[in-house]
């Protein structure tokens, strides 16, 4: 299963909910404002590092660059738009968390 999160974890609980629901072997892709969940030095870092052991946590590169962010938590994969497509092929169903 692929979980898509597009809002900042500081603004909305969608990322935390997705993290709670993602089962072993699934993937979470952070896009748009969701990329802030992938950053080092936030209160979410430990949860993300721990989750990355069982789940593939990915973040969309272009959205990181647009926000001037480069310090990504270890274990989180940066993907491009091609990688985004690959994720939707490899993991179904896809859920866009609002």
């Amino acid at each position: 299963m692929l979980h898509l999160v597009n809002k900042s974890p500081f603004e909305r609980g969608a990322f935390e909910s997705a993290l709670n629901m993602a089962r072993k072997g699934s993937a979470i892709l952070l896009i748009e404002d969701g990329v802030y969940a992938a950053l080092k030095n936030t209160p979410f870092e430990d949860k993300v590092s721990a989750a990355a052991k069982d789940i593939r946590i990915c973040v969309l590169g272009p959205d990181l660059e647009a926000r001037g962010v480069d310090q990504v938590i270890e274990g989180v994969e940066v993907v491009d738009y091609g990688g985004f497509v690959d994720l939707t092929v490899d993991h179904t169903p896809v859920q866009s968390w609002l």
Partner: protein
Amino acid sequence: MSDEIQTEYDTAGVEKKFMFLNRKAPYGTIYALEMLETVLISAAFDQDVTLVFMDDGVYQLKKGCDTKAVNMKNFSATYKALGDYDISKLFVEKESMEARGLTQDDLIEVIYEDEDDDWAEKPAIHVKSRDEIAKLMEEQDVIISA
């Protein structure tokens, strides 16, 4: 007639305190850009304007934004131009920065020229505590929040 509605107001020279409160991250929604455009328009009216950035709004001032790959217009440079519009108060909330692991070094520089100090160039961005900003909020005439 005694029940005529007043339609003419003498507002020349009225200066009100406006606070524009920015709480949203840039690019994911249109709020950041719309607020910036509203601020630029308001600058034409010579009011006492303060911009406050808190919660995810602090990310609006992050340096190093490159929006080429997402095909959106990069408006970081527009914040830098605020100094030219006599907007010299950009306050960033300390607690929001700390929660996001950010320091003032992570932010862009916005400079204005202080006409009361021989046009000396000064920084417009200041980190303020939550308490200072809360107190300032109560002193405003108009607060526009996004």
